[in-house]
Protein backbone atom coordinates (compact mmCIF):
# COMPACT_ATOMS: atom_id res chain seq x y z
CA UNK A 1 0.00 0.00 0.00
CA UNK A 2 2.70 2.43 1.02
CA UNK A 3 4.55 1.46 -2.11
CA UNK A 4 1.65 2.56 -4.25
CA UNK A 5 1.45 5.92 -2.51
CA UNK A 6 5.19 6.42 -2.92
CA UNK A 7 4.93 5.50 -6.59
CA UNK A 8 2.09 7.95 -7.11
CA UNK A 9 3.97 10.78 -5.46
CA UNK A 10 7.06 10.10 -7.52
CA UNK A 11 4.90 9.80 -10.62
CA UNK A 12 3.38 13.21 -10.01
CA UNK A 13 6.81 14.76 -9.55
CA UNK A 14 8.18 13.35 -12.78
CA UNK A 15 4.89 13.84 -14.59
CA UNK A 16 5.01 17.56 -14.01
CA UNK A 17 8.23 17.67 -16.01
CA UNK A 18 6.51 15.74 -18.81
CA UNK A 19 3.90 18.46 -18.62
CA UNK A 20 6.55 21.14 -19.00
CA UNK A 21 7.87 19.39 -22.06
CA UNK A 22 4.40 19.17 -23.54
CA UNK A 23 3.64 22.82 -22.83
CA UNK A 24 6.07 23.84 -25.50
CA UNK A 25 4.52 21.48 -28.02
CA UNK A 26 0.97 22.47 -27.28
CA UNK A 27 1.73 26.19 -27.38
CA UNK A 28 3.18 25.94 -30.87
CA UNK A 29 0.39 23.70 -32.04
CA UNK A 30 -2.27 25.97 -30.64
CA UNK A 31 -0.82 29.20 -31.95
CA UNK A 32 0.13 28.23 -35.47
CA UNK A 33 -1.44 24.83 -36.04
CA UNK A 34 1.95 23.24 -36.59
CA UNK A 35 2.97 19.97 -34.98
CA UNK A 36 6.60 20.54 -34.11
CA UNK A 37 8.42 17.29 -34.78
CA UNK A 38 11.72 18.82 -33.73
CA UNK A 39 10.33 18.79 -30.23
CA UNK A 40 12.32 15.70 -29.32
CA UNK A 41 15.51 17.24 -30.67
CA UNK A 42 14.86 20.38 -28.60
CA UNK A 43 14.52 18.27 -25.47
CA UNK A 44 17.76 16.45 -26.22
CA UNK A 45 19.46 19.77 -26.94
CA UNK A 46 18.46 20.93 -23.48
CA UNK A 47 19.93 17.76 -21.98
CA UNK A 48 23.22 18.20 -23.78
CA UNK A 49 23.32 21.90 -23.01
CA UNK A 50 23.21 20.99 -19.34
CA UNK A 51 25.97 18.44 -19.84
CA UNK A 52 28.23 20.75 -21.84
CA UNK A 53 27.70 23.80 -19.66
CA UNK A 54 28.43 21.88 -16.46
CA UNK A 55 31.32 19.85 -17.87
CA UNK A 56 33.01 22.44 -20.03
CA UNK A 57 32.34 25.67 -18.17
CA UNK A 58 31.69 24.28 -14.74
CA UNK A 59 28.41 26.09 -14.21
CA UNK A 60 26.39 24.74 -11.32
CA UNK A 61 23.64 22.58 -12.84
CA UNK A 62 20.59 24.63 -11.95
CA UNK A 63 22.24 27.86 -13.00
CA UNK A 64 22.11 26.60 -16.56
CA UNK A 65 18.34 26.88 -16.59
CA UNK A 66 18.09 30.56 -17.51
CA UNK A 67 20.85 30.09 -20.08
CA UNK A 68 18.98 27.22 -21.67
CA UNK A 69 15.70 29.12 -21.67
CA UNK A 70 17.23 32.08 -23.44
CA UNK A 71 19.33 29.95 -25.79
CA UNK A 72 16.37 27.74 -26.59
CA UNK A 73 14.26 30.76 -27.41
CA UNK A 74 16.82 32.11 -29.86
CA UNK A 75 17.26 28.73 -31.51
CA UNK A 76 13.51 28.37 -31.76
CA UNK A 77 13.11 31.71 -33.49
CA UNK A 78 15.85 30.79 -35.95
CA UNK A 79 14.24 27.42 -36.57
CA UNK A 80 10.93 29.11 -37.26
CA UNK A 81 12.42 31.22 -40.01
CA UNK A 82 14.33 28.32 -41.55
CA UNK A 83 11.81 25.56 -41.65
CA UNK A 84 8.41 26.66 -40.49
CA UNK A 85 7.59 30.12 -41.79
CA UNK A 86 6.73 28.99 -45.28
CA UNK A 87 4.76 26.01 -44.06
CA UNK A 88 2.37 27.73 -41.71
CA UNK A 89 -0.49 28.03 -44.09
CA UNK A 90 0.09 24.94 -46.11
CA UNK A 91 -1.37 21.52 -45.55
CA UNK A 92 -0.44 19.85 -42.29
CA UNK A 93 1.59 17.35 -44.24
CA UNK A 94 4.17 19.93 -45.23
CA UNK A 95 4.86 21.34 -41.80
CA UNK A 96 4.95 17.86 -40.29
CA UNK A 97 7.48 16.78 -42.88
CA UNK A 98 9.62 19.88 -42.69
CA UNK A 99 9.94 19.81 -38.91
CA UNK A 100 10.49 16.08 -39.15
CA UNK A 101 13.28 16.64 -41.66
CA UNK A 102 14.99 19.14 -39.40
CA UNK A 103 14.72 16.62 -36.58
CA UNK A 104 16.49 14.00 -38.69
CA UNK A 105 19.27 16.42 -39.54
CA UNK A 106 19.79 17.55 -35.95
CA UNK A 107 19.73 14.05 -34.49
CA UNK A 108 21.95 12.82 -37.30
CA UNK A 109 24.53 15.52 -36.62
CA UNK A 110 24.27 14.82 -32.91
CA UNK A 111 24.90 11.12 -33.49
CA UNK A 112 27.85 11.83 -35.74
CA UNK A 113 29.44 14.27 -33.33
CA UNK A 114 28.52 12.85 -29.93
CA UNK A 115 27.98 9.18 -30.66
CA UNK A 116 25.15 7.24 -29.09
CA UNK A 117 26.71 6.52 -25.73
CA UNK A 118 25.04 7.25 -22.43
CA UNK A 119 25.68 10.63 -20.84
CA UNK A 120 25.09 11.40 -17.23
CA UNK A 121 25.17 14.64 -15.28
CA UNK A 122 25.80 13.83 -11.65
CA UNK A 123 23.60 16.06 -9.50
CA UNK A 124 23.59 15.39 -5.81
CA UNK A 125 20.85 16.83 -3.69
CA UNK A 126 19.56 15.74 -0.31
CA UNK A 127 16.69 13.32 -0.73
CA UNK A 128 13.55 12.91 1.31
CA UNK A 129 12.94 9.54 2.91
CA UNK A 130 9.54 8.41 4.02
CA UNK A 131 9.13 4.97 5.58
CA UNK A 132 11.34 2.82 3.35
CA UNK A 133 10.89 4.93 0.26
CA UNK A 134 13.18 7.68 -0.90
CA UNK A 135 12.25 10.62 -3.06
CA UNK A 136 15.21 11.96 -4.90
CA UNK A 137 16.00 15.63 -4.32
CA UNK A 138 16.42 16.12 -8.03
CA UNK A 139 12.87 14.95 -8.70
CA UNK A 140 11.48 17.34 -6.10
CA UNK A 141 13.45 20.32 -7.33
CA UNK A 142 12.57 19.57 -10.94
CA UNK A 143 8.89 19.57 -10.08
CA UNK A 144 9.28 22.81 -8.15
CA UNK A 145 11.07 24.52 -11.00
CA UNK A 146 8.42 23.27 -13.41
CA UNK A 147 5.75 24.87 -11.26
CA UNK A 148 7.74 28.08 -11.24
CA UNK A 149 8.14 28.16 -15.00
CA UNK A 150 4.49 27.28 -15.52
CA UNK A 151 3.52 30.11 -13.22
CA UNK A 152 5.73 32.55 -15.08
CA UNK A 153 4.24 31.39 -18.37
CA UNK A 154 0.75 31.97 -17.05
CA UNK A 155 1.65 35.47 -15.91
CA UNK A 156 3.18 36.15 -19.28
CA UNK A 157 0.21 34.92 -21.29
CA UNK A 158 -2.44 36.59 -19.18
CA UNK A 159 -0.87 39.67 -17.70
CA UNK A 160 1.46 41.07 -20.35
CA UNK A 161 0.72 42.59 -23.73
CA UNK A 162 2.97 40.31 -25.78
CA UNK A 163 1.37 37.38 -24.03
CA UNK A 164 -2.07 38.60 -24.90
CA UNK A 165 -0.95 39.05 -28.49
CA UNK A 166 0.10 35.40 -28.52
CA UNK A 167 -3.30 34.33 -27.22
CA UNK A 168 -5.02 36.55 -29.73
CA UNK A 169 -3.13 35.02 -32.62
CA UNK A 170 -3.89 31.53 -31.28
CA UNK A 171 -7.53 32.38 -31.09
CA UNK A 172 -8.00 33.90 -34.53
CA UNK A 173 -5.08 34.92 -36.66
CA UNK A 174 -6.95 37.05 -39.18
CA UNK A 175 -8.73 38.99 -36.51
CA UNK A 176 -5.45 39.58 -34.68
CA UNK A 177 -3.87 40.78 -37.92
CA UNK A 178 -6.74 43.15 -38.42
CA UNK A 179 -6.20 44.52 -34.93
CA UNK A 180 -2.69 45.48 -35.89
CA UNK A 181 -0.86 42.66 -34.17
CA UNK A 182 2.32 41.73 -36.09
CA UNK A 183 1.31 38.11 -36.46
CA UNK A 184 4.47 36.83 -38.10
CA UNK A 185 6.58 38.19 -35.27
CA UNK A 186 4.20 36.70 -32.76
CA UNK A 187 4.39 33.32 -34.49
CA UNK A 188 8.17 33.29 -34.40
CA UNK A 189 8.06 34.43 -30.79
CA UNK A 190 5.68 31.64 -29.87
CA UNK A 191 7.84 29.07 -31.64
CA UNK A 192 10.88 30.31 -29.77
CA UNK A 193 8.97 30.08 -26.53
CA UNK A 194 7.90 26.52 -27.33
CA UNK A 195 11.45 25.40 -28.04
CA UNK A 196 12.70 27.14 -24.89
CA UNK A 197 10.20 25.23 -22.79
CA UNK A 198 11.21 21.97 -24.44
CA UNK A 199 14.88 22.72 -23.77
CA UNK A 200 14.15 23.56 -20.15
CA UNK A 201 12.27 20.30 -19.74
CA UNK A 202 15.24 18.47 -21.25
CA UNK A 203 17.59 20.11 -18.80
CA UNK A 204 15.43 19.11 -15.84
CA UNK A 205 15.11 15.54 -17.12
CA UNK A 206 18.88 15.39 -17.48
CA UNK A 207 19.32 16.25 -13.80
CA UNK A 208 17.25 13.17 -12.99
CA UNK A 209 18.09 10.48 -15.57
CA UNK A 210 20.94 9.62 -17.94
CA UNK A 211 20.36 10.24 -21.64
CA UNK A 212 21.65 9.64 -25.13
CA UNK A 213 21.32 11.56 -28.38
CA UNK A 214 18.38 9.29 -29.17
CA UNK A 215 16.45 9.89 -25.93
CA UNK A 216 14.37 12.66 -27.48
CA UNK A 217 12.05 10.29 -29.30
CA UNK A 218 10.64 8.70 -26.17
CA UNK A 219 9.98 12.08 -24.55
CA UNK A 220 8.48 13.45 -27.73
CA UNK A 221 6.02 10.56 -27.75
CA UNK A 222 5.16 11.26 -24.13
CA UNK A 223 4.63 14.90 -25.04
CA UNK A 224 2.15 13.84 -27.69
CA UNK A 225 0.28 11.72 -25.20
CA UNK A 226 0.21 14.59 -22.72
CA UNK A 227 -0.88 17.06 -25.37
CA UNK A 228 -3.71 14.76 -26.34
CA UNK A 229 -4.75 14.51 -22.71
CA UNK A 230 -4.54 18.21 -22.10
CA UNK A 231 -5.99 19.52 -25.30
CA UNK A 232 -4.29 21.54 -27.98
CA UNK A 233 -3.03 24.99 -27.31
CA UNK A 234 -3.78 24.63 -23.64
CA UNK A 235 -0.64 24.97 -21.52
CA UNK A 236 -2.49 24.54 -18.25
CA UNK A 237 -4.05 21.41 -19.65
CA UNK A 238 -0.61 20.21 -20.65
CA UNK A 239 0.68 20.52 -17.12
CA UNK A 240 -2.33 18.66 -15.74
CA UNK A 241 -2.00 16.10 -18.49
CA UNK A 242 1.64 15.56 -17.61
CA UNK A 243 0.85 15.05 -13.97
CA UNK A 244 -1.92 12.66 -14.94
CA UNK A 245 0.41 10.67 -17.15
CA UNK A 246 3.04 10.48 -14.42
CA UNK A 247 0.39 9.37 -11.99
CA UNK A 248 -0.89 6.67 -14.33
CA UNK A 249 2.61 5.42 -15.03
CA UNK A 250 3.49 5.28 -11.37
CA UNK A 251 0.30 3.58 -10.36
CA UNK A 252 0.19 1.14 -13.25
CA UNK A 253 3.76 0.02 -12.59
CA UNK A 254 2.79 -1.02 -9.09
CA UNK A 255 -0.28 -3.06 -9.92
CA UNK A 256 0.93 -4.84 -13.04
CA UNK A 257 4.27 -5.89 -14.51
CA UNK A 258 6.26 -2.77 -15.33
CA UNK A 259 6.64 -3.79 -18.97
CA UNK A 260 2.89 -3.28 -19.49
CA UNK A 261 2.98 0.43 -18.66
CA UNK A 262 4.00 1.34 -22.19
CA UNK A 263 1.07 -0.59 -23.63
CA UNK A 264 -1.30 1.27 -21.29
CA UNK A 265 0.25 4.58 -22.25
CA UNK A 266 -0.17 4.14 -25.97
CA UNK A 267 -3.62 2.61 -25.84
CA UNK A 268 -4.60 5.54 -23.66
CA UNK A 269 -3.12 7.88 -26.24
CA UNK A 270 -5.17 6.47 -29.09
CA UNK A 271 -8.28 6.27 -26.93
CA UNK A 272 -7.98 9.88 -25.84
CA UNK A 273 -7.47 11.02 -29.42
CA UNK A 274 -10.62 9.22 -30.42
CA UNK A 275 -12.85 9.96 -27.47
CA UNK A 276 -11.69 13.36 -26.24
CA UNK A 277 -10.57 15.29 -29.31
CA UNK A 278 -10.46 18.46 -27.28
CA UNK A 279 -8.41 16.82 -24.55
CA UNK A 280 -9.55 15.43 -21.25
CA UNK A 281 -8.59 18.58 -19.39
CA UNK A 282 -9.79 21.07 -21.96
CA UNK A 283 -11.28 24.18 -20.54
CA UNK A 284 -14.65 25.12 -21.93
CA UNK A 285 -13.97 27.40 -24.85
CA UNK A 286 -16.48 29.67 -26.52
Amino acid at each position, binding site marked *: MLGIVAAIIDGVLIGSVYGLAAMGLTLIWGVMNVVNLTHGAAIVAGMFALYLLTAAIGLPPYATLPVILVGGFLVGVALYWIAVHRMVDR*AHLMSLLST*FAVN*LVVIGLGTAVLGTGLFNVPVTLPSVTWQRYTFSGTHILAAALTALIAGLLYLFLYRTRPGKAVRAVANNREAAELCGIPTTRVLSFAFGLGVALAGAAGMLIATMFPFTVLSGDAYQLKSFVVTALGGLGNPAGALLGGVALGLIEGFAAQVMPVSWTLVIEFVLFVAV*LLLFPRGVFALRRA
Partner: protein
Amino acid sequence: MKDDTTAAIVADRRVPMPRRPFFWIIALVIAAFATVPAVGNNVELRESLLLATVYITLASNLNLMLGYAGYINFGSIVFFGLGGYIGVYLISAHNWPLAAAELAAGVAVSLLALVFGLGILRLRGAYFALATIGINEAVEAFVSNFQPWGGSAGLYLPTTIFAPLGGPMRALWVIYFLLVGVMGLSLYLAYAVKISKFGLGLMAIGQNEDAALVLGVPAPRYKALAYSMSAFLPAIAGGLYFFKSAFIQPSDAFDLGLSTEAMVIVMLGGRGTVTGAAIGAYLYEELRGWLLTSESFSNFQLVVSGALLLLIVLFVPGGLMGWIYGRWPRTKAVLE
Protein backbone atom coordinates in the same frame (compact mmCIF):
# COMPACT_ATOMS: atom_id res chain seq x y z
CA MET B 1 -2.75 17.24 -57.38
CA LYS B 2 -3.06 19.44 -60.38
CA ASP B 3 -6.31 19.93 -62.21
CA ASP B 4 -5.04 18.87 -65.60
CA THR B 5 -3.87 15.51 -64.28
CA THR B 6 -7.31 14.89 -62.88
CA ALA B 7 -8.80 15.92 -66.19
CA ALA B 8 -6.57 13.49 -67.98
CA ILE B 9 -7.67 10.71 -65.69
CA VAL B 10 -11.30 11.53 -66.08
CA ALA B 11 -10.82 11.65 -69.80
CA ASP B 12 -9.38 8.23 -70.28
CA ARG B 13 -10.75 6.34 -67.30
CA ARG B 14 -12.41 3.96 -69.60
CA VAL B 15 -9.25 2.82 -71.35
CA PRO B 16 -8.43 -0.60 -69.91
CA MET B 17 -5.08 -1.10 -68.28
CA PRO B 18 -3.27 -3.31 -70.79
CA ARG B 19 -3.73 -0.66 -73.45
CA ARG B 20 -1.92 1.95 -71.42
CA PRO B 21 1.82 2.36 -71.91
CA PHE B 22 2.47 2.62 -68.20
CA PHE B 23 1.14 -0.86 -67.65
CA TRP B 24 3.96 -2.19 -69.80
CA ILE B 25 6.53 0.04 -68.14
CA ILE B 26 5.69 -1.57 -64.83
CA ALA B 27 5.90 -4.99 -66.43
CA LEU B 28 9.34 -4.09 -67.74
CA VAL B 29 10.52 -3.03 -64.31
CA ILE B 30 9.31 -6.28 -62.78
CA ALA B 31 11.02 -8.29 -65.49
CA ALA B 32 14.25 -6.36 -64.93
CA PHE B 33 14.17 -7.00 -61.21
CA ALA B 34 13.52 -10.67 -61.78
CA THR B 35 16.05 -11.35 -64.49
CA VAL B 36 19.07 -9.13 -63.97
CA PRO B 37 20.35 -10.68 -60.75
CA ALA B 38 19.36 -14.17 -61.85
CA VAL B 39 21.33 -13.99 -65.08
CA GLY B 40 24.71 -13.55 -63.43
CA ASN B 41 23.78 -15.38 -60.23
CA ASN B 42 24.68 -12.01 -58.76
CA VAL B 43 23.90 -12.54 -55.12
CA GLU B 44 25.02 -9.15 -53.90
CA LEU B 45 22.82 -7.37 -56.39
CA ARG B 46 19.96 -9.57 -55.36
CA GLU B 47 20.39 -8.65 -51.69
CA SER B 48 20.35 -4.95 -52.39
CA LEU B 49 17.44 -5.29 -54.84
CA LEU B 50 15.58 -7.28 -52.22
CA LEU B 51 15.70 -4.34 -49.87
CA ALA B 52 14.66 -2.12 -52.75
CA THR B 53 11.58 -4.26 -53.40
CA VAL B 54 10.61 -3.97 -49.75
CA TYR B 55 11.00 -0.20 -49.84
CA ILE B 56 9.05 0.05 -53.08
CA THR B 57 6.25 -2.09 -51.67
CA LEU B 58 6.04 -0.02 -48.52
CA ALA B 59 6.19 3.26 -50.40
CA SER B 60 3.62 2.35 -53.06
CA ASN B 61 1.13 1.19 -50.52
CA LEU B 62 1.77 4.19 -48.31
CA ASN B 63 1.02 6.30 -51.37
CA LEU B 64 -2.58 5.10 -51.33
CA MET B 65 -3.18 6.97 -48.09
CA LEU B 66 -0.53 9.65 -48.24
CA GLY B 67 -0.44 10.40 -51.92
CA TYR B 68 -4.02 9.98 -52.96
CA ALA B 69 -6.11 10.66 -49.88
CA GLY B 70 -3.66 13.01 -48.22
CA TYR B 71 -3.70 11.14 -44.90
CA ILE B 72 -0.33 10.87 -43.24
CA ASN B 73 0.24 7.38 -41.98
CA PHE B 74 3.35 7.73 -39.82
CA GLY B 75 2.94 4.28 -38.34
CA SER B 76 2.47 2.31 -41.58
CA ILE B 77 5.21 -0.08 -40.53
CA VAL B 78 2.78 -1.74 -38.14
CA PHE B 79 1.33 -3.65 -41.09
CA PHE B 80 4.75 -4.91 -42.12
CA GLY B 81 5.58 -5.99 -38.58
CA LEU B 82 2.28 -7.69 -37.85
CA GLY B 83 2.40 -9.48 -41.18
CA GLY B 84 5.89 -10.66 -40.28
CA TYR B 85 4.79 -11.94 -36.90
CA ILE B 86 1.69 -13.72 -38.13
CA GLY B 87 3.60 -15.33 -40.98
CA VAL B 88 6.50 -16.48 -38.81
CA TYR B 89 4.18 -17.66 -36.04
CA LEU B 90 2.02 -19.77 -38.37
CA ILE B 91 5.10 -21.36 -39.87
CA SER B 92 6.99 -22.00 -36.66
CA ALA B 93 4.20 -22.97 -34.29
CA HIS B 94 1.72 -24.55 -36.66
CA ASN B 95 3.85 -25.69 -39.58
CA TRP B 96 1.83 -23.94 -42.25
CA PRO B 97 3.36 -23.91 -45.71
CA LEU B 98 4.88 -20.62 -46.79
CA ALA B 99 2.27 -19.49 -49.32
CA ALA B 100 -0.68 -20.19 -47.04
CA ALA B 101 0.95 -18.50 -44.05
CA GLU B 102 1.78 -15.33 -45.95
CA LEU B 103 -1.65 -15.09 -47.52
CA ALA B 104 -3.24 -15.57 -44.14
CA ALA B 105 -0.98 -12.86 -42.74
CA GLY B 106 -2.05 -10.46 -45.48
CA VAL B 107 -5.73 -11.11 -44.96
CA ALA B 108 -5.52 -10.96 -41.17
CA VAL B 109 -3.63 -7.68 -41.15
CA SER B 110 -6.00 -6.08 -43.67
CA LEU B 111 -8.94 -7.02 -41.52
CA LEU B 112 -7.18 -5.63 -38.46
CA ALA B 113 -6.40 -2.47 -40.39
CA LEU B 114 -10.07 -2.17 -41.25
CA VAL B 115 -10.96 -2.36 -37.59
CA PHE B 116 -8.28 0.14 -36.51
CA GLY B 117 -9.13 2.33 -39.46
CA LEU B 118 -12.80 2.57 -38.69
CA GLY B 119 -11.73 3.99 -35.35
CA ILE B 120 -8.99 6.41 -36.25
CA LEU B 121 -10.11 7.54 -39.68
CA ARG B 122 -12.59 9.85 -38.04
CA LEU B 123 -9.57 11.98 -37.14
CA ARG B 124 -8.13 14.52 -39.47
CA GLY B 125 -4.69 15.81 -40.35
CA ALA B 126 -2.11 15.77 -37.58
CA TYR B 127 -4.43 13.95 -35.16
CA PHE B 128 -4.65 11.03 -37.55
CA ALA B 129 -0.89 11.05 -38.03
CA LEU B 130 -0.28 10.91 -34.30
CA ALA B 131 -2.89 8.21 -33.84
CA THR B 132 -1.05 6.01 -36.35
CA ILE B 133 2.14 6.44 -34.32
CA GLY B 134 0.18 5.57 -31.21
CA ILE B 135 -1.10 2.39 -32.81
CA ASN B 136 2.35 1.28 -33.93
CA GLU B 137 3.84 1.89 -30.50
CA ALA B 138 0.91 0.23 -28.73
CA VAL B 139 1.18 -2.84 -30.94
CA GLU B 140 4.96 -3.00 -30.44
CA ALA B 141 4.60 -2.69 -26.67
CA PHE B 142 1.87 -5.33 -26.67
CA VAL B 143 3.81 -7.81 -28.80
CA SER B 144 6.83 -7.32 -26.50
CA ASN B 145 4.69 -8.66 -23.69
CA PHE B 146 2.89 -11.34 -25.66
CA GLN B 147 4.59 -14.61 -24.72
CA PRO B 148 3.07 -16.88 -27.43
CA TRP B 149 4.91 -14.67 -29.89
CA GLY B 150 8.13 -14.80 -27.93
CA GLY B 151 7.66 -11.46 -26.22
CA SER B 152 10.65 -9.20 -26.58
CA ALA B 153 12.99 -12.09 -27.31
CA GLY B 154 11.21 -12.72 -30.58
CA LEU B 155 10.55 -15.85 -32.62
CA TYR B 156 13.19 -18.01 -34.20
CA LEU B 157 12.75 -20.25 -37.21
CA PRO B 158 14.91 -23.36 -37.43
CA THR B 159 16.96 -23.74 -40.62
CA THR B 160 14.76 -26.67 -41.61
CA ILE B 161 12.11 -24.23 -42.81
CA PHE B 162 14.13 -23.73 -45.94
CA ALA B 163 13.99 -27.43 -46.78
CA PRO B 164 10.64 -27.43 -48.66
CA LEU B 165 12.04 -24.65 -50.83
CA GLY B 166 15.13 -26.63 -51.73
CA GLY B 167 17.61 -25.59 -49.05
CA PRO B 168 18.82 -22.18 -47.86
CA MET B 169 20.51 -21.07 -51.07
CA ARG B 170 17.56 -21.81 -53.33
CA ALA B 171 15.10 -20.52 -50.76
CA LEU B 172 16.72 -17.09 -50.91
CA TRP B 173 16.04 -16.91 -54.63
CA VAL B 174 12.47 -18.10 -54.23
CA ILE B 175 11.79 -15.47 -51.61
CA TYR B 176 13.36 -12.83 -53.76
CA PHE B 177 11.11 -13.68 -56.69
CA LEU B 178 8.09 -13.70 -54.42
CA LEU B 179 9.02 -10.28 -53.12
CA VAL B 180 9.45 -9.01 -56.68
CA GLY B 181 5.96 -10.34 -57.30
CA VAL B 182 4.60 -8.52 -54.27
CA MET B 183 6.32 -5.35 -55.42
CA GLY B 184 4.78 -5.73 -58.86
CA LEU B 185 1.34 -6.22 -57.38
CA SER B 186 1.84 -3.10 -55.28
CA LEU B 187 2.72 -1.04 -58.32
CA TYR B 188 -0.24 -2.40 -60.27
CA LEU B 189 -2.55 -1.86 -57.34
CA ALA B 190 -1.44 1.74 -56.94
CA TYR B 191 -1.91 2.27 -60.65
CA ALA B 192 -5.29 0.58 -60.84
CA VAL B 193 -6.57 2.61 -57.92
CA LYS B 194 -5.27 5.79 -59.47
CA ILE B 195 -7.19 5.35 -62.70
CA SER B 196 -10.37 4.09 -61.08
CA LYS B 197 -13.40 5.91 -59.74
CA PHE B 198 -12.30 4.86 -56.28
CA GLY B 199 -9.00 6.62 -56.78
CA LEU B 200 -10.77 9.69 -58.04
CA GLY B 201 -12.79 9.71 -54.86
CA LEU B 202 -9.64 9.40 -52.77
CA MET B 203 -8.02 12.29 -54.54
CA ALA B 204 -11.12 14.38 -54.03
CA ILE B 205 -10.85 13.58 -50.33
CA GLY B 206 -7.22 14.59 -50.48
CA GLN B 207 -8.04 17.95 -51.97
CA ASN B 208 -10.94 18.89 -49.75
CA GLU B 209 -12.68 16.25 -47.73
CA ASP B 210 -15.73 18.28 -46.80
CA ALA B 211 -16.35 19.31 -50.38
CA ALA B 212 -15.96 15.69 -51.46
CA LEU B 213 -18.55 14.62 -48.90
CA VAL B 214 -20.95 17.23 -50.12
CA LEU B 215 -20.43 16.04 -53.68
CA GLY B 216 -21.40 12.52 -52.72
CA VAL B 217 -18.07 10.79 -52.26
CA PRO B 218 -18.62 8.14 -49.54
CA ALA B 219 -15.53 9.34 -47.69
CA PRO B 220 -15.61 7.16 -44.58
CA ARG B 221 -16.05 3.98 -46.61
CA TYR B 222 -13.40 4.93 -49.16
CA LYS B 223 -10.88 5.90 -46.51
CA ALA B 224 -11.40 2.67 -44.61
CA LEU B 225 -11.03 0.69 -47.82
CA ALA B 226 -7.84 2.52 -48.78
CA TYR B 227 -6.38 2.05 -45.33
CA SER B 228 -7.18 -1.63 -45.35
CA MET B 229 -5.87 -2.06 -48.89
CA SER B 230 -2.64 -0.32 -47.98
CA ALA B 231 -2.06 -2.97 -45.31
CA PHE B 232 -2.42 -6.14 -47.41
CA LEU B 233 0.75 -6.22 -49.50
CA PRO B 234 3.09 -4.75 -46.86
CA ALA B 235 1.89 -7.49 -44.52
CA ILE B 236 2.79 -10.18 -47.04
CA ALA B 237 6.11 -8.47 -47.69
CA GLY B 238 6.76 -8.48 -43.95
CA GLY B 239 5.93 -12.16 -43.75
CA LEU B 240 8.36 -12.99 -46.53
CA TYR B 241 11.10 -10.70 -45.26
CA PHE B 242 11.12 -12.11 -41.76
CA PHE B 243 10.85 -15.64 -43.07
CA LYS B 244 14.07 -14.99 -44.93
CA SER B 245 15.69 -13.60 -41.76
CA ALA B 246 14.48 -16.67 -39.84
CA PHE B 247 14.13 -14.38 -36.83
CA ILE B 248 11.73 -11.62 -35.80
CA GLN B 249 11.74 -9.38 -32.77
CA PRO B 250 9.55 -6.39 -31.90
CA SER B 251 12.22 -3.73 -32.26
CA ASP B 252 12.98 -4.85 -35.83
CA ALA B 253 9.39 -5.49 -36.82
CA PHE B 254 7.86 -2.20 -35.68
CA ASP B 255 10.75 0.11 -36.44
CA LEU B 256 9.23 3.59 -36.89
CA GLY B 257 12.39 4.56 -38.72
CA LEU B 258 11.34 2.36 -41.65
CA SER B 259 7.90 4.01 -41.80
CA THR B 260 9.46 7.39 -41.93
CA GLU B 261 11.88 6.31 -44.62
CA ALA B 262 8.90 5.16 -46.67
CA MET B 263 7.46 8.63 -46.23
CA VAL B 264 10.67 10.31 -47.30
CA ILE B 265 10.63 8.07 -50.37
CA VAL B 266 7.09 8.95 -51.32
CA MET B 267 7.88 12.64 -51.00
CA LEU B 268 11.21 12.26 -52.75
CA GLY B 269 9.70 10.47 -55.71
CA GLY B 270 6.59 12.54 -55.99
CA ARG B 271 3.52 12.12 -53.88
CA GLY B 272 0.59 10.56 -55.65
CA THR B 273 2.57 9.14 -58.53
CA VAL B 274 3.26 5.46 -59.01
CA THR B 275 6.62 5.97 -60.72
CA GLY B 276 7.67 8.33 -57.99
CA ALA B 277 7.28 5.72 -55.28
CA ALA B 278 9.29 3.23 -57.31
CA ILE B 279 12.13 5.49 -58.43
CA GLY B 280 12.26 7.22 -55.07
CA ALA B 281 12.53 3.88 -53.26
CA TYR B 282 15.21 2.57 -55.55
CA LEU B 283 17.31 5.73 -55.38
CA TYR B 284 16.89 6.05 -51.66
CA GLU B 285 17.82 2.43 -51.04
CA GLU B 286 20.96 2.74 -53.14
CA LEU B 287 21.91 5.97 -51.43
CA ARG B 288 21.34 4.59 -47.99
CA GLY B 289 23.17 1.36 -48.70
CA TRP B 290 26.12 3.31 -50.00
CA LEU B 291 26.13 5.70 -47.04
CA LEU B 292 26.00 2.84 -44.60
CA THR B 293 29.05 1.09 -45.93
CA SER B 294 31.03 4.16 -46.86
CA GLU B 295 33.83 4.88 -44.43
CA SER B 296 33.25 8.55 -44.08
CA PHE B 297 29.50 8.67 -44.24
CA SER B 298 28.09 5.85 -42.20
CA ASN B 299 27.16 8.24 -39.42
CA PHE B 300 25.57 10.68 -41.75
CA GLN B 301 22.67 8.83 -43.32
CA LEU B 302 20.16 10.49 -41.04
CA VAL B 303 21.58 13.89 -41.86
CA VAL B 304 21.43 13.19 -45.57
CA SER B 305 17.86 11.82 -45.44
CA GLY B 306 16.77 14.77 -43.38
CA ALA B 307 18.46 17.36 -45.53
CA LEU B 308 17.02 15.78 -48.67
CA LEU B 309 13.54 15.74 -47.23
CA LEU B 310 13.82 19.34 -46.09
CA LEU B 311 14.96 20.53 -49.49
CA ILE B 312 12.11 18.70 -51.18
CA VAL B 313 9.47 19.97 -48.81
CA LEU B 314 10.68 23.54 -49.03
CA PHE B 315 11.57 23.84 -52.67
CA VAL B 316 10.35 20.91 -54.72
CA PRO B 317 7.18 19.68 -53.04
CA GLY B 318 6.23 17.74 -56.13
CA GLY B 319 9.27 15.54 -55.72
CA LEU B 320 11.25 14.04 -58.53
CA MET B 321 8.24 13.29 -60.70
CA GLY B 322 6.88 16.77 -60.07
CA TRP B 323 10.09 18.15 -61.46
CA ILE B 324 10.05 15.79 -64.42
CA TYR B 325 6.44 16.60 -65.24
CA GLY B 326 7.33 20.26 -65.06
CA ARG B 327 10.23 20.00 -67.49
CA TRP B 328 8.76 17.44 -69.87
CA PRO B 329 4.98 17.79 -69.72
CA ARG B 330 4.48 15.00 -72.23
CA THR B 331 5.69 12.40 -69.77
CA LYS B 332 2.60 12.95 -67.69
CA ALA B 333 0.59 10.90 -70.10
CA VAL B 334 2.97 7.98 -69.99
CA LEU B 335 4.67 7.88 -66.60
CA GLU B 336 2.15 7.84 -63.88
